[in-house]
């Protein structure tokens, strides 16, 4: 599911409430039948292990290598001293290699994170989250600092992985056409309230105005459109393709979240 909305609507806050990086002031968050807001220290850590988070600014430890950054996804499962000595169980290491190959970054395994490009760092962040073997993926603005081509590659990768591993993914994203292209369920937030929840096909100009405010949602003609204009699979008014790009929806029924303010 993609979260869209104007800046300050609370998308980032909402995502961070789910794993309690930000403490919600009231209400409850139920993940897989468990109320996250009621958990204490060790129980919260156990819950966080099942929730993988992918950050806008990648949030990698620069001076550590790609492999060390990816392995840090398993810190919740490994004791303090073993993790400091980098003695992770062999199955974990095997899985790490698999995931690195899947995201396409296995050649950089021993490179320091600060030697990678933005798109590569994003992949390491994704690998780290995947190594947690999570049930839920929280993704905060995965494409904000990426160019259009890398953005689409990353979105494709994310949604592909979500399908393969049958994960629920909550994706905070500002690029509405990109979201609509890949994600089967869109939730629009405005000033902390849900104002839209449904299929991207139902994102009419009226809906967008409700979410973002008054604006001319017609695609602006006049020369250089952006490179998104490749397919001519019949677009509606804002260049969104008629069919959703991902088949096999992520399984929302298993996870429900409610926030009430």
């Amino acid at each position, binding site marked *: 599911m993609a979260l869209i909305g104007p800046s300050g609507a609370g998308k980032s806050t909402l995502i961070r409430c789910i794993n309690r990086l930000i403490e919600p002031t009231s209400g409850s968050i139920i993940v897989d039948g468990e109320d996250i807001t009621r958990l204490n220290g060790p129980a919260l850590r156990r819950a966080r292990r099942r*929730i993988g988070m992918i950050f806008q600014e990648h949030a990698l430890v620069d*001076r550590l290598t790609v492999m060390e950054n990816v392995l840090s996804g398993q810190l919740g499962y490994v004791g*303090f001293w073993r993790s400091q000595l980098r003695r992770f169980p062999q199955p974990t290491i095997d899985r790490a290699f698999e995931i690195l190959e899947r995201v396409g970054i296995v050649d950089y395994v021993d490179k320091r994170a600060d030697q990678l490009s933005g798109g590569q760092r994003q992949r390491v962040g994704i690998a*780290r989250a995947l190594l947690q073997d999570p049930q839920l993926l929280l993704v905060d603005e995965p494409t904000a600092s990426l160019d259009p081509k890398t953005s689409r590659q990353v979105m494709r990768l994310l949604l592909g992985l979500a399908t393969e591993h049958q994960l629920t993914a909550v994706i905070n994203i500002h690029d509405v056409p990109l979201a609509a292209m890949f994600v089967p369920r869109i939730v629009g937030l405005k000033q902390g309230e849900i104002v839209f929840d449904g299929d991207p096909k139902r994102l009419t100009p009226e809906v967008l105005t409700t979410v973002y405010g008054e604006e001319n949602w017609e695609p602006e003609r006049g020369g250089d459109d952006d490179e998104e204009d490749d397919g001519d699979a019949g677009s509606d008014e804002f260049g969104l393709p008629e069919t959703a790009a991902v088949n096999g929806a992520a399984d929302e029924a298993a996870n429900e979240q409610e926030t009430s303010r």
Partner: protein
Amino acid sequence: MPVRQVGEHQVWRLRTPRQALLTWLGWLLGLIVVAVCFRFVSGQTMWVFVWDAGAQAADLASRMVPPEWSYARRLWVPLWDTVNIATFGTLIALVVSVPVAFLAARNTTPHPVFRQAALVIIVFSRSVNSLIWALLLVSVLGPGLLAGIIAIALRSIGFVSKLLFEAIEEINPRPIEALAATGAQGGQVLGYGVVPQIMPAFAGISVYRWDINIRESTVLGLVGAGGIGLQLDASIGELQWARASVIFVMILVLVVFSEWVSARVRQSIK
């Protein structure tokens, strides 16, 4: 830049009249302070000795040159002691400074009370010169290297902890957040997120302090805390200036060496 109208012309001055007055008053005040200080110092000075200074200096120079090079044989062990005082003192200080720094940094301290306590430790350590610590320690523990090592350590803790906790407060918080989000424990978050970020700073600070400590260790012997300062004290006490100048040469060589090491290590960290 103030511009005023004077008659028919526009006049530019660097400062407004008010600023100019304040500046002038400031300098006057400074001058008065200096004059008062000078009167006081002068009052404590026996000017007869001062007029004699040139002759004294010449006399001193003649006694110091040529240096008594044969004395150098007896200086190798004290020099070795001096290096050890500095090195062991720095090592002890590093071990203590790390927890103190983590307690003092706003983003890693478990509780503000700990932070205040750590800051008090740091302040005390920084304000008291290592020579004063050495004086106290020699009085309590007796003369010898131990007093010197502890004196160096006590002074260095404040220095290292202060720079280290400033480095800790400046780390990028995003990886820290990410590590917590994977379900890692506090210690693991520190080990994977904080420590790698402050490693270069820690190494640089340590070597820098070691270099300063070498200098400070050379004189601790003047109060009995071991090292080549003991020989210096003895030579000067016996007015053996030719021996003292050999000691000075050795100190100079040692300091140049330690500064070279320090610069090389800090270079390779970048």
